[in-house]
Each structure stands twice: as structure tokens, then as C-alpha cells.
């Protein structure tokens, strides 16, 4: 025993040169905007796991599920580990849900937060407490608007941050964001297959009408266009309402409930095309389903953790973007469908076949989303 110990210590000295990546977190403090100071904090998952033991199944690996289940404890840890204050008192820090990021092969949590001061701060002092009393060699590399060199802050260290008018101007365009939010709205529709397929499912029967239990082409494009306009408007109105409710945190529906529901709207619409139950007032159905989709959109804005006024502006821009994206999908598919509607095979092959395919996809989504599986990939 005595000898083993001796050798252990001796070897340590001889060659302890294999440093691992040391324990470092990355904190970015941005220029104050109004009363608020935005923070972005990256902490290695390895470090968070050391403090909170996230590895629920004890297999030596972390899955995102294991991390996500402890999201509230993680934001609590962040809240305890960082404090911002001005001469007038503390500026309470509110953290959004953790997101994931890899930096050169190492997993990090990315937390976005805001310190809300009583008045617009010209200077805040940040008190850093992560790993205080646990790992004195832990460091935060802090970037601030007042210097170009990152500062190194040790546990229990303090860092004063000055905000100048110049710094604010320099960083403002970065999140001026209205244009970017519009773009995000467009991309959200174009990249979100479930929203897009829902619109397509609604559109398929719009260029035909039900007569004596059979589908026949609408005579004029005009009638079909009016129908489509009603459907799209009802959808827009509905998802705008729920998007706003969710973004301002008035109503919250967890993602694991909303995700399968969104898929269910696609399934229901596709099935309705095959075995029509609702044939008139499609706009009403579109409105009802739109309410569900709005909660799905809200997942994009929620993690941004924006202050109220900025959120309202972002919401407007994002919504306009969603409409723009919707317009692209609707007009492109409407043009194609309007041309195809005269074909006698339309009801069977395009409406029937298309709806069957949509129903299959939506059904698979529901299974995937309820059981958290991946059934279809590229």
C-alpha cells in the first residue's frame, strides 16, 4: 500500500503533461439595451454533469433526453452561479431553456439569458460563482462590449462591464433582427414539412368541388381562388393568435403534446380528402387546425427570451415572414393544381393518391413523435 502510493505520486510528477481540455465556460455579455443586458453562456456538458449528475441511466453517456429532463435544474444552476448588479441593486437574470452546441468535439450547453435592471445601466458588475468552492482552476472566458480581449474570471471573481453608447450602436444591428425574423418566418414555413404538407392537404380539394358524392373540377379559377384565400386567411388568423399567446407565455403547451397534434391535423385533413366528412366551411377547419400550428411556431421564438416590446416586434416580423412563406407554397401549388384540375384522373390520382401519401406520412409522424422514434430519414 505504502509503495503503491509512493509510485503514484512519483509518476504524477514525472509526466503529467496530458492536459485535457480544462474546465472553461464561455460567457458573452452584450451591450445593454434599455434596462436589459443580454447574456449568452456556454458551459461544458461534462462540467454540468459533474455538478448535477445528469447521466440518469448511468451508462457513462449523456443523451439529449437526459439533459432536457433536467432543464429546470440547469437554469437554476445558472441563476445561482451568475449575478449582475448595478449601483442601484441587482439585475435579476432570467435564463431560457438550455440548447446544445458542440465546440471541437466537446458538448456544450448554450444558455441565453437577460439581466433586468431597474434603470438602463451604464455599468454592471458581474459576480461569477460557477464551481466556487469546488474547482478553483475553473475559469470563465468573458467577452464584453467594452473590450476586445476576453477577460478570465475565476470562481467567486467579479468583473465590471461598462456600456457605452458606441458599444450599443455596434451591437444593435446584430439583433435589430426585424429583417432576419421575417426571413426566419419564411424559412420556417418552407423548411417545416408539417406546416407545408398541411397547406398542400388543404389545397388539394380546393380546385374541385363535391357534387352528388363525386369530385368535379371547379369551372372557373376564380371560385377556387376565393376558396383558397379563405382557407389561408383562416389558418393565418388562427396561428397568429396562438403564436402570440404562447410567445407572451400566456398559454403554454408542451412540445411533446403539440408535435403529434400538428401531425394529426395533416392526417385528419388528408383523410377528409379521401372520405369527405367536412366538405363545406373548410375555412373553419383550417382555423381550428391553425390554432394548433401556432403553438408549433412559438417554439421558435420562445428560446430567444426577448423582452416584451422586442418580442412584439419580432412576432410581427416572424408572422409576416410566415405569411410570405405560406404565400409561396400556396401560389405555387395552386398554380399547379389549377392546371391539373381539368385532367379526369385528378380526383383519383392527384387528390386521392396525394392525400393517401400525406396520410401515410402524417401517420408515421404521429408514431414517431409520440414514441420518440425515427422511422423515416433521408
Amino acid at each position, binding site marked *: 500500500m505504502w509503495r503503491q502510493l509512493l*509510485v503514484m505520486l512519483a509518476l504524477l510528477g514525472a509526466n*503529467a503533461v496530458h492536459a*485535457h481540455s480544462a474546465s472553461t465556460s464561455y460567457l458573452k455579455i452584450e451591450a445593454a439595451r434599455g434596462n436589459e443586458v443580454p447574456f449568452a453562456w456556454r458551459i461544458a456538458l461534462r462540467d454540468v454533469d459533474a455538478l448535477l449528475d445528469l447521466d440518469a441511466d448511468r451508462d457513462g453517456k449523456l443523451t439529449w433526453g437526459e439533459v432536457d429532463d433536467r432543464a429546470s435544474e440547469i437554469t437554476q444552476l445558472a441563476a445561482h452561479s451568475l449575478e449582475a448588479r448595478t449601483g442601484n441593486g441587482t439585475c435579476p437574470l432570467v435564463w431560457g431553456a438550455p440548447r446544445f452546441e*458542440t465546440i*471541437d468535439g466537446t458538448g456544450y450547453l448554450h444558455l441565453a439569458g437577460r439581466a433586468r435592471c431597474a434603470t438602463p445601466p451604464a455599468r454592471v458588475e458581474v459576480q461569477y460563482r460557477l464551481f466556487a468552492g469546488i474547482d478553483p482552476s*475553473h475559469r470563465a472566458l468573458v467577452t464584453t462590449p467594452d473590450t476586445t480581449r476576453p477577460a*478570465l474570471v475565476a470562481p467567486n471573481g467579479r468583473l465590471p462591464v461598462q456600456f457605452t453608447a458606441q458599444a450599443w450602436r455596434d451591437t444593435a444591428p446584430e439583433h435589430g433582427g426585424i429583417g432576419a425574423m421575417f426571413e426566419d418566418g419564411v424559412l*420556417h414555413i418552407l423548411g417545416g414539412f408539417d406546416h407545408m404538407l398541411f397547406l398542400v392537404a388543404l389545397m388539394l380539394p380546393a380546385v374541385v368541388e363535391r357534387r352528388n358524392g363525386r369530385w368535379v373540377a371547379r369551372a372557373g379559377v376564380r371560385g377556387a381562388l376565393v376558396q383558397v384565400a379563405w382557407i389561408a386567411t383562416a389558418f393565418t388568423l388562427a396561428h397568429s393568435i396562438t403564436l402570440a399567446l404562447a410567445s407572451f407565455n400566456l398559454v403554454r403547451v408542451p412540445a411533446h403534446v403539440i408535435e403529434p397534434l400538428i401531425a394529426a391535423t395533416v392526417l385528419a385533413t388528408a383523410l377528409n380528402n379521401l372520405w369527405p366528412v367536412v366538405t363545406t366551411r373548410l375555412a373553419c377547419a383550417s382555423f381550428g387546425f391553425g390554432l394548433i400550428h401556432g403553438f408549433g411556431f412559438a417554439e*421558435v421564438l420562445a428560446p430567444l427570451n426577448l423582452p416584451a416590446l422586442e418580442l412584439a416586434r419580432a412576432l410581427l416580423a416572424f408572422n409576416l415572414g410566415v405569411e410570405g412563406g405560406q404565400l409561396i407554397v400556396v401560389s405555387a401549388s395552386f398554380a399547379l393544381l389549377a392546371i391539373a384540375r381539368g385532367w379526369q384522373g385528378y380526383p383519383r390520382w392527384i387528390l386521392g393518391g396525394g392525400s393517401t401519401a400525406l396520410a401515410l406520412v402524417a401517420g408515421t409522424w404521429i408514431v414517431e413523435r409520440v414514441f420518440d422514434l425515427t422511422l423515416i*430519414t433521408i
Partner: protein
Amino acid sequence: MRPHRILSSLPRAGESRPRTRSGGPGVRTIAAALAILTSAALAQETPSRDTVVETQLLPRTVKASVQRLATANATSLSATERFASARRMIEAGRASGDPRTLGYAESLLAPWPADDPRAPLEALVLRATIEQSRHRFDAARLLLDRVIARAPDHGQALLTRATIAQVRGEYAAATQDCLRLRPLAADVAAICGALSDALTGHNERAREALRSAAARTQGAVRAWALSALAQVHEQRGERRDAAAAYRASLAADDDLTTQLALADLLIEQRAWRDARALLASAPPADGVLLRRWLVERALGGDAQSIAAQLQSRIDEAIARGELLHARDAAVFALERGDAATALRLARENWAAQREPADLRVLARAARATNDRAAIDEVRAWMRHTGLDDARLRADLLGA
């Protein structure tokens, strides 16, 4: 939406790095017809629940200690528990190369600050070990001097001080401490002395002493004797015997330092696949990454991502103001063809530690930059200490 898109207006979207891609929305096959509409959406995704986001976690025992430190229970730990726990942390750090555990060990010793004149000897020795592992050799030595002044027969302190002296190239001091160890632990003292012999040109004497020490001992002590023996074989140009001794050492007691030494030998012999196999299960410490990079570069594997990872580790260490592994950084620069940086790092490293491997990097960098002064410095050191090393002679050949 399952694929929560990461928006371009996110506060740090410009800096966001590639995310782990998960199963994804899963409808791309069907959506191919609509590809034209989707081409604009280069979605980044947050992982699905079953996506593995980190595989390199700290050992459970280490995490348990961290959590005890984090809670108020920490104050209720007894001195014995603190010492035992700190020792385990240091040991875990040696196995994984993770410097975090040294910080945890330091916190466990918090009740006895380094300048406390009445601190228990055990606390001082553990603190010295932590300092030494961080390459703060002078701080470590001051602590050990205090321990030995209070307890002249403290074997552990004597051995640790001898080791530091050897790393610093102060062989007379090392030999003295090794001699003082003899009545306390004869085999350990023999190995300690043989190491000094090997570094001062007495290769044959060292080899015989290490061979007989290895035959008499077992476990970690035997492993230590065998890895020292392997080094002597390498100095004598006996590569086959060296590899066998390293492997025997690893069989007696698995150790990251020995693994890396063997990896270096295999790399030098261009036994790339053997080196790859050896490092396959090693923890991703910097030293391991460096060797993996060399191996993958030679085998046409994914060397690029390893190089990027290494570079970012080095950058981070510089940003933190603590380039512990200047030797590895120098080798990395040298192998990438940046001889000037390699020489600067090799000199920096040589100022801190003076083992044959440190001298070799300096020699290779000096030759690559054709720096006469540095080459003379290497030769002067060899003359001064009597160090007899076939590898160094080869490194200097043509200089």
C-alpha cells in the same frame, strides 16, 4: 415542429458551431418533390431525445465527490475522508489526463491553506502533488521542503522531491533524495537512483538495476521499473526491447504516460496500425490527440478534425494563460511545418522541464530552423550531464 430551426437572428447565430444532427424530420424521401421549395431552409436542429450529446463524462466516484463539495455536507467531511478523496481525485486525473480533478482535490484540501504552518503533512504533500501536476515545480518543492524539514524520513515527500529534481535536470539533488529513501523503501530507492543514472550517461548500470528491481517487485512499482527500463532501452537504441518492456509495464499496471511513450515508439517505427490500436481506448487528453493526429495523418484517416480539436485546445490554454503541455504543442507545430513556433515552444518547455523527450523536441526544432545556438545548447547539455541517448544523436545528425 420537431426540427426546431435555429434562427439566423439568434443572438449568437453567427458563432454557432455545427450541431449534432439527429434523426431529423424523417420525411425527406416524400418531400423530394417539394425540394425546390425547401432548398432555402438549411435547418440546424436541436438533437432528438436519444441523440448522444457527450460521451466523456467524469467517473462516478469523482462526480460523487463534486456533489459532496457542492452541498453543505462538505463541512462534515473528516480530515481522513478529505485526504482519501483528494488522493482519489489526483489518481483519476492521472488516469484520464483531466485537469478538473486537480481542482476538486484542491478544494478538498481547502481547510489547510498552503501557508498554514500547522497544516497536516499529508495535506502539504497532496498540495505539492497538485502543484507538481500543474508544472508549478517551484511551488511544489517549497511545500515538500517544509514537509521534509518537519519529518526528515517522509518517504513520499522525498520521492516526489527527487522526481521533480529529475524533471528539472538537477541530478545531484535527485540522487541525494533517492539515497535517503533507501532505508525506507529499498526497491523504490533503487528505481529512483537508476532513473538518475539513466539521465547522466550510466545507461548500463541503470538497465541492470531496473531489470532486477522489476524482477523483485509487482504491481505499480514493477510497472514503474519496467517503463523506466524501456526508456533506457530506447536511449541505447534497443527499440524491440523497449517496446517489450513498455508492454510488460502496461500489463503490470495500465498507465497513460507509459501508453503515450509506447505510442511514440511505435510512431517512430512507423507501426501506425499498432499505434492506432494502442490509443483506441485512451481518453481524449491532449497527448493522446497529438499521437492520434500523427497516426491518422499517416493512415489517411480523419486527421483534419483531430488537428482542429488540438489547435482549439492549445488556443484555449493560451487564452487561459496556462500552456501546460508546451512539449506537445511544440511537436504539433513541428509536425505541421511551423518550425519557428516549434522552436519557440520547445525553448519555453525546456526552461520548465528537462527530460530527454524535452531535449529531443528542442533538438528537432533547432535542426528544422537551423538554429546554431539552440543546437549548441542541446550539445552542451549532453556534454554537461553525460546524457547518452541514441535518439538524440540521430535527431542532431546533420545539424
